[in-house]
Each structure stands twice: as C-alpha cells, then as structure tokens.
C-alpha cells in the first residue's frame, strides 16, 4: 500500500457509515446513573487492574490525577433541597473520536472492535488528543512514577507500565478482552460469550450500575440495557458517537 492509498483509506474508511459493522465486536458499556452510588469501588478496581500509578499529594495538588475512571459530582439546589448526583466518567471509546484525528503519529486509533486504542510506545507526547477530547479522560504521564518497594509486586503483568511523556487512558481492559478471545479460540468458539469478559470496574460495581458487552448481538445484556428509554449519551450533541451509554437518573418525585 503506498502512502496515497493509506492517506485515502485512513481518511475515508473510518468515516464511512457502518464501517465497523463488518467486524466481530462492538464493545459497549452502559452506566445506570440511577444505580450508581458514587462509592468509588470502580476507581480503585481500575487502578489495581491497570497499573495506574500513585501520583502523590503534591502532583495531585497540581491537578495531575491519574484515574482512568473517575467519579464526577454535580450539586443541584440549595439546602435543605440540595441534591447530589454522581456520574462515572471514563474514556467513551467514541466511534467518531476527535482524539484519533489529531494524533500526528497515529498512537491513538480505532480498532476493529470499536475500541479507541492508545499505543503507549508510539506516543510522542504532543498531548493534542487530551485537548481534543471533550470528556477530558486522557491522562498524561508528567513524570516517571515509582512504587515504594514492595508495592511494585502488585503490578499486573498483562498491562505495561507507562513511562514519562506518554498519554494513557481507559482501554476497556483490553487485556481481559484479549484473554477472553484467546479462551474462545481454545474452545473452538468464534465469538466471546456474553458476560465472559468484564472490565475491572464493571466486574466490581457493588450496585451493578455498569453493564459491559458486545452490542452486535441484540440478545446481550448490554444491548437490552442500551435500548432502555432512559439511555442517553453525555455531550451527545457533539456527535462523537460514544460507546459508553448512560441511563438517566430517575427523579421519583417528577413525572
């Protein structure tokens, strides 16, 4: 393939409507805001699974937190009618991701599973993807992080440790997806079963607010839950077509 062909294909293909339909999977997550209690279990589960470093008080103070999934909180009303609403915010794995268009070295791209991939060792640290991302869910390694021995023994061998100057973000726990596909191959199945693969956050959510799966198959749990009447996309007006779909919080006292 010469440069021109690549240029044309990379320009057009991804933008073709239903380009991803021809592939096997379209991994999707739904988050039921009516179930989410904001407890933060997903955050720690993610940190444990994905070797996310401890950045320390000083760096946090400078606004350099590292949490691939974070809990955002929004107050409404004033005392005594104040209400607090939580929303877990993670990489939305957009099908039309702004971050993918801007990376000059294609360190971030869309793969055939509908995942918004980030290749750490290709990243040169322009940080433009973080600027283009309207959800600000991309996190940059401002410096090398170290684990006080023996904390490094906890590191997950299936996930690499990112060096300074590299952008990182939620991967939908691609190592688990990889694992599940591998299993499926061993069992001679073509596809991964529903519920066979779950990202760390989904796996642990105590109130089962998070559902993960492949929306290609209408019988999957995630397909059902994303067809719920309460389904919506955060900042949907931007038409980034996220693969993370939220279910509206129910206000019991309103119609």
């Amino acid at each position, binding site marked *: 393939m010469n440069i021109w062909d690549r240029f044309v294909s990379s320009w057009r293909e991804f933008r073709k409507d239903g380009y991803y339909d021809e592939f096997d999977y379209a991994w999707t997550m739904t988050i039921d805001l009516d179930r989410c209690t904001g407890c933060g279990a997903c955050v720690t589960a993610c940190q444990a699974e994905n070797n996310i470093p401890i950045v320390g008080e000083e760096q946090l103070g400078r606004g350099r937190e590292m949490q691939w999934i974070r809990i955002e909180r929004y107050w409404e009303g004033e005392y005594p009618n104040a209400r607090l609403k939580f929303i877990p915010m993670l990489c939305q794995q957009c099908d039309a991701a702004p971050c993918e268009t801007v990376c000059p070295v294609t360190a971030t*791209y869309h*793969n*055939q599973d509908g*995942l918004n*991939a980030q*290749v*750490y*060792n*290709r990243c040169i640290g322009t940080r433009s993807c973080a600027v283009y991302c309207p959800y600000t869910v991309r996190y940059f390694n401002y410096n090398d992080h170290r684990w006080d021995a023996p904390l490094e023994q906890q590191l997950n061998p*299936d*996930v*690499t*440790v990112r060096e300074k100057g590299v952008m990182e973000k939620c991967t939908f726990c*691609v*190592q688990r997806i*990889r694992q599940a596909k*591998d299993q499926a*191959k061993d069992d001679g199945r073509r596809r991964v079963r529903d519920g066979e693969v779950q990202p760390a956050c989904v796996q642990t959510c105590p109130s089962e607010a998070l559902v993960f799966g492949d929306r290609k198959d209408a019988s999957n749990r995630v397909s059902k839950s994303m067809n719920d009447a309460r389904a919506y996309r955060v900042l949907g007006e931007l038409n980034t077509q996220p693969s993370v779909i939220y279910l509206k919080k129910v206000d019991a006292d309103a119609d």
Partner: protein
Amino acid sequence: MGVSIVPTLKVLKPAARIVLVALVGIAVGYFANAAFFPGTKPEQPIAFSHRIHAGDNEIPCLYCHVQARRSISAGVPSVNKCMGCHAEVAADRPQVALLTNYWENREPISWIKVHDLPDFVHFTHKRHVAAGIECQTCHGPVETMEVVSREAPVKMGLCLDCHRKNEVQYGTDCWTCHK
C-alpha cells in the same frame, strides 16, 4: 578577482580530512563493540548445549519447554525436570555435576534471557505453537547452537512480515500485540 573556489577548497582540506577520520573511527568503534562484546550471546551459569539436546539427541523443544503449549511464556524447565534424565544420563560430566549441585542445594539456576521482548509487547507462545509456527522462525536454528544466541532480530518488522504473510486475522492491529 578571486572567483575560483579552488584555493578555498585547499584551505578546507585538513579540516575535511579530520572529520572523515573521525567518522571512520565511530564506525570502527561501533562494530568493535558489537563484535567483541555481543549482548546477544551471553555466558550461562551452566554451559548448556542445545546442539547436544535438541540437535544430536533430537529432544523436541516442547519436551522441556512444556509451558509453550498452554501459556504465554514458554518457561524454562525446572531443575528437577533436568534431573529427571540427568540423575542417570551423563551424570559424570562436569557441567551436569554443576546441575546436580544446584539440585542438591535446591537452588534455582538463574539463566540469562537471550530472547527478550520489551514490556509493552504481548506475545503468547500458546497461540503461535497452536498455529504450528516453527520455534526456529523466531529463535533461529537453536538445535545447531552450542551456545544460544539471538540470531533473527526479534523486532516489530519480523512480527508484522509474518502476520501479513499468513494473513493473521487482525494481525496488523496494534492492540493485537501492544499492551
């Protein structure tokens, strides 16, 4: 009017010469290092010969590296695996004596890794063995080596060539190998 640049070139000649020699020097130094201190052929705690085992005695790779069939890592045989044969076989040889020594002290042998991939690469022996890829494609003709050395450059290009040639499904997707 001195339009001609010949005199100028004369003036520059010695400088050019020095630069030239320096460049040659760099090349020489580089290759000297690579030739006399190769990192790809380290000296192992026991002078284990793949030629004798895999070559002359034709022991299949997977006999010792059992894990390769079912795990991402091929694994090195445990000491008692070695002793399984060497309790009797060639027990008198000095190198085997070393082995028995390790065994008696229940000490692990710290082999030096020859074929090593960076931390960010996800390579699973299992899938490649299952796909019937010869070990030699990446590890070189180990059965002929007295001391194992890294012959084939195990670099991204090698992987991709093979994935393209065999039309691996999604074989060129970055996330197939990068973690």
